[in-house]
């Protein structure tokens, strides 16, 4: 699968937040978008997923050369897009397992037998070193920041997207948790040839991943692109690269 973003302009309440972004993500590729707060990274991620409050004023988003602008959010997910939220939503009363099973059924149209589904969830949560009791609770309700991020990765592994956008998967995580999350994401990319966009402020998580493309975003635009060497440049000079 190929995700292509062409000269994308996105507004919120008539204020342009993304102004002219071009990106191409092929399957199996790992792209990193770095940039200061307010540079439009999260807005770009949400626009790709189809957030209803964002307005695409010009440009296009293509999946395998077909425009998905105007497509419903759930239909984008069915095509294989996944967004890991920077601040995952808490829904008290909605069981995580039930939510995940419903989501899986909606995406695949083939709900798993509960036993098979549980076995997959349990092995994935063990790999993420998530406490067992969390999977029996309400979706993200009362979870720590780190637990929420791990649950996002758990969802990604169960839903098996073709292209995933991870919005700050490292924020709120301690060093060990960053390593565990990065390892899981990398293994999934390799096992499933999944395309990845990782949005981050920090390079720590990238120590455990093998990114091929680095993009620096500022004021709603990609201002610099390069390979892994760009990470060191950002570390040394900040975002004034």
């Amino acid at each position, binding site marked *: 699968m190929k995700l292509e973003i062409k000269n994308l302009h996105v507004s919120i309440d008539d204020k342009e937040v993304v102004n002219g972004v071009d990106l191409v993500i092929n399957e199996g590729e790992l792209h990193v978008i770095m940039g200061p707060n307010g540079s439009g990274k999260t807005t770009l991620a949400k626009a790709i997923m189809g957030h*209803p409050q964002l307005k695409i004023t010009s440009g296009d988003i293509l999946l395998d050369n077909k425009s998905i602008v105007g497509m419903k959010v*759930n239909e984008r997910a069915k095509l294989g897009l996944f*967004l890991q939220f920077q601040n995952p939503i808490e829904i*008290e*009363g909605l069981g995580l397992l039930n939510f995940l099973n419903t989501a899986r059924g*909606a995406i695949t149209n083939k709900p798993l037998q509960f036993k098979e589904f549980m076995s997959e969830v349990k092995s994935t949560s063990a790999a993420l070193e998530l406490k067992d009791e969390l999977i029996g609770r309400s*979706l993200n309700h009362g979870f720590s920041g780190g637990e929420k991020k791990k649950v996002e990765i758990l969802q990604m592994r169960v*839903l098996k997207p073709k292209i995933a956008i991870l919005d700050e998967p490292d924020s709120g995580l301690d060093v060990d948790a960053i390593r565990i999350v990065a390892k899981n994401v990398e293994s999934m990319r390799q096992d499933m040839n999944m395309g990845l966009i990782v949005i981050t402020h920090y390079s720590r998580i990238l120590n455990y991943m093998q990114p091929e493309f680095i993009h620096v975003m500022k004021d709603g635009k990609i201002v610099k692109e390069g390979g892994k060497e760009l990470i060191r440049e950002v570390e040394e000079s900040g975002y004034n690269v």
Partner: protein
Amino acid sequence: MSEAYDEFRRDALQQYDTLPYELNDLYKKYFVEVHLPSETDLDAARSSGRRKEVEAYANYIEERTNKKFDVVISNSFVRNSSGIVSIKRMDSLSESELRGKIFKNTDNKLVAYVNANSRDVVFVKIEKKTSKKLSIMVINEDNLVFQVFFDIGEGAFLDVFELYASLPGTGALVSPLQEFSVHKDSKMEFTMLNDGNAQSQLLNLSKGIIEENSEINLNFIYNGSGITKSVGFFDTQGKSSRINAAETIYGTREQKFDINTYVINSKERSYTRLETGAILDGGSYCLLKGYAKVERLTRGAFSRVNQRGIVLNDKAHVDALPDMSIDYSNEVSATHSAATSPIDKEALFYMESRGIPETQARKMFVASFITRYLSNIQNPSAKEIASSVILSRIENDDFGVINTVTPKGIWMTSTANK
């Protein structure tokens, strides 16, 4: 008919004529009115001759819910297979029984109405240090006005589940007046689920006294009926006594709700907690009137009133009017809060981003909201039936029809609100 009853009834009728509809200054401006049938209407209802229909419908509900109810009450059919229940006529009550009533005629105009017009009284008596369960089905076929007295002996436990349903094709008032005496060191679990049809009205009047070291866990689930009005007073009259109450309101179409509950801390180290959640769609309207009162000399008391409303469209409306009165301010913990908002669009976006269509995401959101409050129910069978009735309604957009109870709702979680 005793002389004592005659006098009691005369007083009730007089209070009904003189008392205003609402006594509380704040709530005088905000209330939903129920249509109270005349004496002639009530007499006609009591001779409706629908015994066979009601009996058949009770059997049908038992089949659907897979539960045999201990007591079935209606105007034309009463079944009692419980050893802890006796059913009497109001006009046969003795002077001491009438004097011992917790709800006085002067408490409220509506109380005076029900006291004056009740025919049947259900007595539930639990002996000291015993533990009992009781299920009651109330079928409203035509203007049913009655009373229930719960008397929980010292050190005893009673778990009650009440299900209110309407006979299909009928529409009328059902008005229970319920009194709870929870004596020292005892415990009561109480769940009331209303699934009356759109033509029916529910007027639920309840008053409870909780004695020392005792506890009551209350669950009111207002799902059905065109109009629901509830007035409740629950008072911790003993040291270290506890009231834990959850009220769930789910409204659609033109349903109207007026939910007025008073929780009172009267003694030291008493605990009261009232959690109310209303979720409304269609042109539904709800008034939430939770009132916490902390009396003098209640050191170590805890009081909390929390009201939450969610409206699913621009036409539905929730007015939350929490109120609190604290007469003793030292070493008392008291909070109240209220919030009403539309459905959380970020939550919908999150669910949709996982492939779930918007319609289903909205249903899941409604179910999750209600589950938070249903999780307070401790009786597994009551919880299962309540969850199933709500889920069936979310799926089919219908109420007043008991569908087959499924073992577990797929969207429900057993550990919410812990």
